């Protein structure tokens, strides 16, 4: 009996000091890019040579592409390879986490390459160094000439794992390549990988080409070209190279764009001197009129769910952005700021609309919510326009022109990209001057 009493007393005494759980709210962190180490991929010694690809260097090259992709996002900070302690062959099997932590890396990418029987097999692993565990691992098999795309796909997978968003590296950008003096520009349709490599020209440059736009569901492009001074809307299949005329439209035709399902194109053209918005079904070729207003309505862009259309109109006097249902009803003005607004483009994520704004002779690229609130101007310059979204709705690509002298000297047009946070503005390298970019969807889904 006494024993029980003692136990009882001791227990109560011990439990006397109890405190409420301390809770601390962490609402801020640092915005520094995540330090990541991309180890060169280990090339298996059993690898065979393939055509003119230097297989021995492939591991290094792929890791460089991945690094470059990450650096361009502004979200990651790839660490210098000189600091790496572990060799790729061992690192791939079991990284010594302490060694990598020592150089302040938080994530590590390792991998292995094997070229055999004319097939390229690439394996990669992503390691969380602080938790000392594998985050993801995948293997791809393809033809060796596809190695560049494999590097982009790996980048996408890692990006997705670390940010929760889809990547945008395995994509292409179509644009108008410009050359020659300003009053006699040769404009060709060109396409390149998102990182600026693999440039190809799709037209010869005999005719003026304008506003190429990707189909959001596949690798089709619609663009405008002048044939005997008549604007024509074309469809181009990039995979096969086939091209067809969608139609001749009267007067001024502007900026055809695909609907989110890729089955229609939406554009504006002038009928009887009045510019309105029309859609055209690509299968039946039936043209449907969407707006009917005496003002000039241009630059239509569908929301990703296809239910709404954003467009430009000067019906209130100055050019502003309006949103309506896809059948043309319920038109609402959404911009009320100072200046002129144009080129609304709905984000593929659906939450924002990108636009160009002109105010006091300066051009701005900005984003706002779809009801017009939360306007954020991301960049200001002498002349810039035509924003186009990356497929994950995180980055905008647009073009910027410099001021020309009286004889057109000093003029240039270049592609630039900027993050929707307004950080990380950078120029995309193109071989010639470039304008009117359009970003494709992911090539591999």
């Amino acid at each position: 009996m006494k024993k029980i009493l003692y136990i009882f007393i001791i227990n109560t005494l011990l439990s006397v000091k109890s405190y409420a759980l301390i809770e601390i709210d962490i609402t801020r962190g640092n915005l520094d890019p995540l330090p990541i180490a991309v180890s060169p991929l280990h090339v298996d010694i059993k690898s065979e040579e393939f055509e003119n690809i230097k297989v021995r260097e492939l591991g290094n090259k792929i890791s460089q592409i991945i690094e470059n992709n990450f650096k361009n996002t502004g979200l990651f900070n790839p660490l210098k390879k000189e600091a790496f302690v572990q060799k790729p062959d061992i690192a791939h099997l079991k990284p010594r986490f302490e060694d990598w932590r020592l150089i302040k890396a938080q994530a590590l990418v390792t991998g292995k390459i094997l070229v055999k029987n004319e097939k390229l097999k690439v394996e990669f692993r992503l390691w969380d160094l602080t938790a000392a565990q594998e985050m993801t691992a995948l293997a791809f098999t393809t033809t060796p000439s596809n190695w560049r795309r494999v590097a982009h796909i790996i980048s996408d997978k890692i990006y997705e794992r670390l940010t929760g968003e889809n990547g945008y590296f395995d994509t292409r950008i179509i644009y108008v390549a410009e050359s020659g003096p300003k009053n006699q520009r040769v404009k060709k349709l060109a396409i390149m990988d998102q990182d600026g490599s693999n440039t190809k020209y799709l037209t010869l440059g005999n005719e003026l080409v304008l506003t190429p736009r990707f189909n959001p569901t596949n690798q089709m492009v619609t663009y405008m070209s002048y044939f005997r001074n008549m604007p024509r809307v074309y469809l181009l299949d990039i995979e096969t190279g086939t091209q067809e005329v969608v139609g001749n439209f009267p007067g001024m035709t502007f900026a055809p764009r695909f609907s989110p399902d890729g089955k229609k194109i939406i554009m504006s053209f002038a009928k009887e001197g009045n510019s309105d918005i029309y859609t055209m079904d690509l299968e039946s070729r039936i043209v449907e009129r969407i707006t009917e207003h005496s003002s000039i309505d241009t630059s239509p862009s569908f929301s990703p769910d296809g239910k709404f259309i954003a467009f430009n109109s000067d019906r209130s006097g100055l050019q502003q952005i309006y949103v309506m249902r896809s059948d043309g009803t319920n038109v609402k003005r959404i911009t009320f700021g100072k200046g002129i607004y144009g080129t609304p483009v709905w984000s593929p994520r659906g939450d924002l609309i990108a636009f160009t704004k002109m105010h006091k002779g300066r051009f701005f690229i900005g984003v706002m919510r779809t009801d017009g609130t939360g306007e954020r101007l991301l960049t200001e310059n002498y002349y810039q326009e035509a924003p186009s979204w990356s497929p994950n709705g995180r980055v905008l690509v647009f073009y910027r022109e410099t001021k020309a002298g009286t004889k057109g000297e000093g003029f240039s047009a270049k592609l630039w990209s900027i993050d929707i946070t307004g950080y990380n503005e950078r120029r995309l390298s193109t071989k010639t001057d470039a304008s009117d970019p359009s970003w494709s969807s992911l090539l591999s889904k």
Partner: protein
Amino acid sequence: MIKSLAYSITFHSIMILLTVLSLPFMLREPIELPPIVSVELIQISDKTNIPYAPKARKIIKENKKKEEERVVSEQAPPAAKAKEKPDRIPLPNEKKEEKKIVKKKQNPEEIKPEIRQSSEFEKKEIIDTNQIAALIDKAKEVEAVQEKESNKITQSSKKNSFATGLTLSEEDALRAQIFGCWSVPLGLPYDQNLLVRIKLQLKKDGTIMKSEILDHERMNRPGQKFYKVLAESALRAVRLCQPLKVPPTGYDKWKDLQLNFNPTEMLKG
């Protein structure tokens, strides 16, 4: 009969003694001076309450000599309390979101600031000097009403310093340290309610014995990719920060610690 009466009396007196001892306000612990203020602490201070911390410390020293009650009445002017209210009531357009966040937290007292405040003042006599320092800080903070972000932080720190034994500067040191370690995944959407709560068990030197994500089953649910990314980044931050800057004393108070990671403010940018 007498025997049982004796038992009864001894037990009852033990129980009374235990109750008296275990009541928190009866514990008069030696005043813990805040630890040396770190560099990170000063950086953060622009937006929180640290600029006033040195003053608070001075006052704590003075208070050792003075009677507690008097100091309280001096240092907590009612005007400060009145001013405090507007910043506790969210603006109409922010209301929605704040509510959501509050719901998820475990401390319901955050929702009813007025009720909690009145009780503070009732308890005047038993408030210890650390709490006075907190009060002084709070009064000063009123000036920074417009900055919502910092308000939120200070609110929670007030809550904690009253509920537990960590002083404001101790808590700020810890918070500032974790701010530095946490790389916020910037790709997360701003309009989703993302809050990751991590419960830690610490050793005396501030290293982590055990870490646990409180809603960790949510991590593997489909469509919760962003939550998973956030949870992983929070865990990384905590591990990177080891050893945590914990006070040298009072291990019992902070051996269990809960960190609520909420990136919403940052993502809205």
